[in-house]
């Protein structure tokens, strides 16, 4: 079960206190009534759904009730950081990204001379 740091409570709390709330940094257009179909689709429907680093919203529903943002690696499930709603999208350092990266499936040092199998090609 994930441990999530609430930037308002300033504590790590278990996942069951929180609700995910989708991708972060999607601002509601101020002139929303006037935007085009394509712009509306971009705002409402289209999401990056990245495999890897994701910027996402959470709400500490069973705690302080505040919405906040988080950066997480969706493969390793490791959080890089959380920050308050309204704060700008953070620039990540190489170290931060590396620390949350999943471990490679095969040891980097081990080199296979054999031709890639069918399964490997399918990936």
């Amino acid at each position: 079960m994930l441990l999530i740091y609430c930037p308002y409570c300033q504590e790590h709390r278990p996942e069951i206190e929180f609700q995910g709330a989708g991708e972060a940094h999607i601002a509601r257009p101020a002139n929303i009534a006037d935007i085009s179909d394509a712009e509306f689709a971009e705002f409402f429907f289209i999401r990056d759904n990245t495999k890897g680093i994701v910027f996402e919203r959470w709400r500490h529903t069973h705690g302080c009730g505040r919405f906040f943002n988080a950066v997480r690696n969706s493969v390793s499930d490791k959080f890089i950081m959380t920050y308050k709603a309204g704060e700008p999208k953070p620039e990540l350092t190489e170290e931060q990204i590396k620390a949350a990266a999943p471990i490679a499936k095969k040891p980097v040092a081990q080199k296979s001379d054999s031709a890639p199998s069918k399964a490997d090609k399918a990936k």
Partner: protein
Amino acid sequence: MSISSATAGANRIRNRGRLNRARSISFSWDGKSLNAYEGDTLASALLANGIHLAGRSFKYHRPRGILSAGPEEPNAIVDIARDTARRQPNVRATVQEVFDGMQANSQNRFPALNFDVGAVNDFFGPFIPAGFYYKTFMWPASFWKHVYEPFIRRAAGLGTAPTEADPDNYANRYAHCDVLVAGGGPAGIAATLAAARKGKTVILCDENADFGGHLRADIHAQIDGQPAMDWVASAIAELRRLDNVTILNRTTAFGYHTANMVALAERVTDHLANPDPEMPRERLWQVRAETVLIATGAIERHLVFPGNDRPAVMLASAAQMFTNHFGVSIGKRVGVYTACDSAWQAAFDLHEAASPIALIVDARSEVPSQLLAKANDLGIAVKPGHKVTATSGRLRISSMTVEAENGHGKEKIPIDALIVSGGWTPSVHLFSQSRGRLAFDADSGRFLPDEAAENCICIGGCNGAKSLSETLTDAAKATGSKPVSCEETGSMVGHQIGTSNGQPGSAFDKSFIDFQNDVTAKDVRLAVREGMLSIEHVKRYTTTGMATDQGKMSNMHGLAIAATELGREIPDIGLTTFRAPYTPVTFGTIINHAKGKLFDVTRTTPIHGWAIEHDAVFEDVGNWKRAWYFPRPGEDMLAAVNRECAATRNAAGIFDASTLGKIEVVGPDAVKFMELMYTNPWQKLAVGRCRYGIMLREDGFIYDDGVVGRLAEDRFHVTTTTGGAPRVLNHMEDYLQTEFPDWKVWLTSTSEQWAVVAVQGPKAREIIEPFVEDIDLDDMPHMSIREGRFCGVPTRLMRVSFTGEMGFEINIPANYGRSVWETIWERGQPLGLTPYGTETMHVLRAEKGFIIVGQDTDGTVTPDDANLSWAIGKKKTDFVGIRGLKRIDLVADGRRQLVGLKTLDPREVLEEGAQIVEDPHQPIPMKMIGFVTSSYWSENCGRSIALALIENGRARMGEKLHVPMANGAIAVEVCETVFIDPDGSKLNG
């Protein structure tokens, strides 16, 4: 040494073993009474009584014996009962401790363990190859439901489930610690001591009753200058005295979850004869640890050779455990077949303790000279570079056939037990569950922990240590301490995975890999020949590793044989995924308290008790219990609802509306916020007036609705649907916090602060009037709200109606809800006031065409579809959903619109959800143009009524349509949604 004549079994060894022999206890095995000592497992007790035959295998019903002394046991799977309700199938006899009065029974046999009809499958074995079920039960499709599936279900499956409810209780605890140590062998104990002495909070758990791990099977090792088990005893005693250490025996770490959350299953009472009924049977621990030290040891493998599954074939380490810890002799003429050094020491221990060794066969031609010398000293015959090619004996092994690697010197040796070792498989289960990476070490034929994904360290046998000194060094390294000194005799060097080279596989060859699922080497080879390239496919095709033991002994053999057959290396084939639980966990442990009343939250209103006393039938609405209807003696639901409906329209009804969601919206920007959240205009709503509000999502579809009252310029009393309250508040908070954080608005849920009594009907005003203070009812038109007092308590009195009658919703503080209700009830009764439930509420609102969000809408309905365009503020420049409503598909022709339906036969009541077509004679599949959303018998209309969403519904007034049902199509006529009082004169009366 000799066999003792003690009462607890004829095969006890004098002066051997660590059990307390002061008192014997009795248990039954297949109805026969036997004795054991406290501390015996069922396996050791059976062996002490000379019983090796413990079960029948799954597919071939072959007689099987006790193979191991631990949780990896695939064969001795039994049914354990305390009484008729407390019975558990599929228990491993090697784990279950014997208690006085225990009833143990063998499984998967008929009529008896030593004579089983199903064993005929064994002779048909060549005709039940891998993938047999896939190949055989293919057609015709109709046979699946009635022939194949019942057959497979009856033939397959171990044990029988208990039929009575489990009377035991189960507990749950959360714990946090600096260090969790999983496994209480030498590595785990040494690491716990080191961490505890540094002041860390430590939890140490071990699945067995006694700590020590494999040391329990060892009588030679010394640690810190004393016999190893003495060191274990003093270490555990020291740890138990420390406040910062929690010691949990009989506790299995079975699941490693994200962020160092480890699940433990503690068996609290399963070993006790008369457990305290207050004690939980088992306890789930959810431990969050800063660091996890995985000290889970290693599991010995069997060897794959023909006839390797006969009763009294046993792992060498298990035989050593039964001899040295339990003091039980497993045979009087024991054969040894090994590829690992450790089995030699086991053989020496057995030989010296009343189980003479007939011959040690080692598959390796090179065996350490000191082992050969020791065997020579003890007078034990040895054959290095040999293999066992056959065994005999149906209910217990009686001989093994041995030959040299080159096939020469074939010899049949009479034996009554055979101990085997193919080397040791590190228990990397927890590490792998944590998503740590494994690496294959070809030299030792083992997958070993490589890079960790969580903050955990593997120590000892699970990390590849092959000796006690390596184990203790590991523990010291992980805890930054000095290694404890030790002396040892055994080592885990040597291994064989898969079959010996060149062993043939005839159609009748029974070289078992997976005992519980009856998978042989031949089956794996066949699977590969039939095109299974990945180990995941081989596993599913042959079912190897898919039994309750999850292949703890078999997986490496299956992998090696598949790799050989494919001509590839083991790491290229991959390893099947390790998943929780490590060993079977009861459902009781997993659900623990969450059963019966604690299964889910039950919400009741302040008036709930009154409804119970007045015979209400309840329905579940979300977590709420709501009074559904109030039947009088002799009334069915329809009769009760008809009476309630008529009474409300003719006199008055009283209804508990307390479950309505209520949100207080307050602040200088409250009206601006309401303009954003709801489609309606709010600026001009006067203080003291109410308005029906519609909330959309950004996509333009209806999300919720409810009446909103304006209490002050900056204060709104917002009501939501009963089920929608939490998500509406979440939706509001989302916009307020993240889109408009500068707005000065505060949102508070008041759903449970206000009880709501609805009084509806022509006599509603007459009934409530005497209780109203500080409010002028003459000055309260329909859709108004006032603050004052009611029965002397503060109220928010709303004149609103969900029935179409003149009505009031009286909000009072929840604590006064029932007394206010009873006061109104007392006065109203002589005037014809009738309590009604949610069903009557549904009928009355449908008679007026009022929608219920979630019933008449489904998340794809716009306000216009529901005839609610009037509720959209036409001059507004923004509200949630304003842009969504303009989407092409939402303004296109042909949308489904809400209309009324009248069946041509007025007595016919449609089914909600029924589909609607234009022509009932068109070919199937018919074109569906809509569906029924609400349908009731309306006593007030004297006919059935219905609401439906139908394509271009509003343009179809008077049109005849059809609702196809199983018994023929029902003809209906499209009509307006309002069935009663279309001009609303009753509301304003």
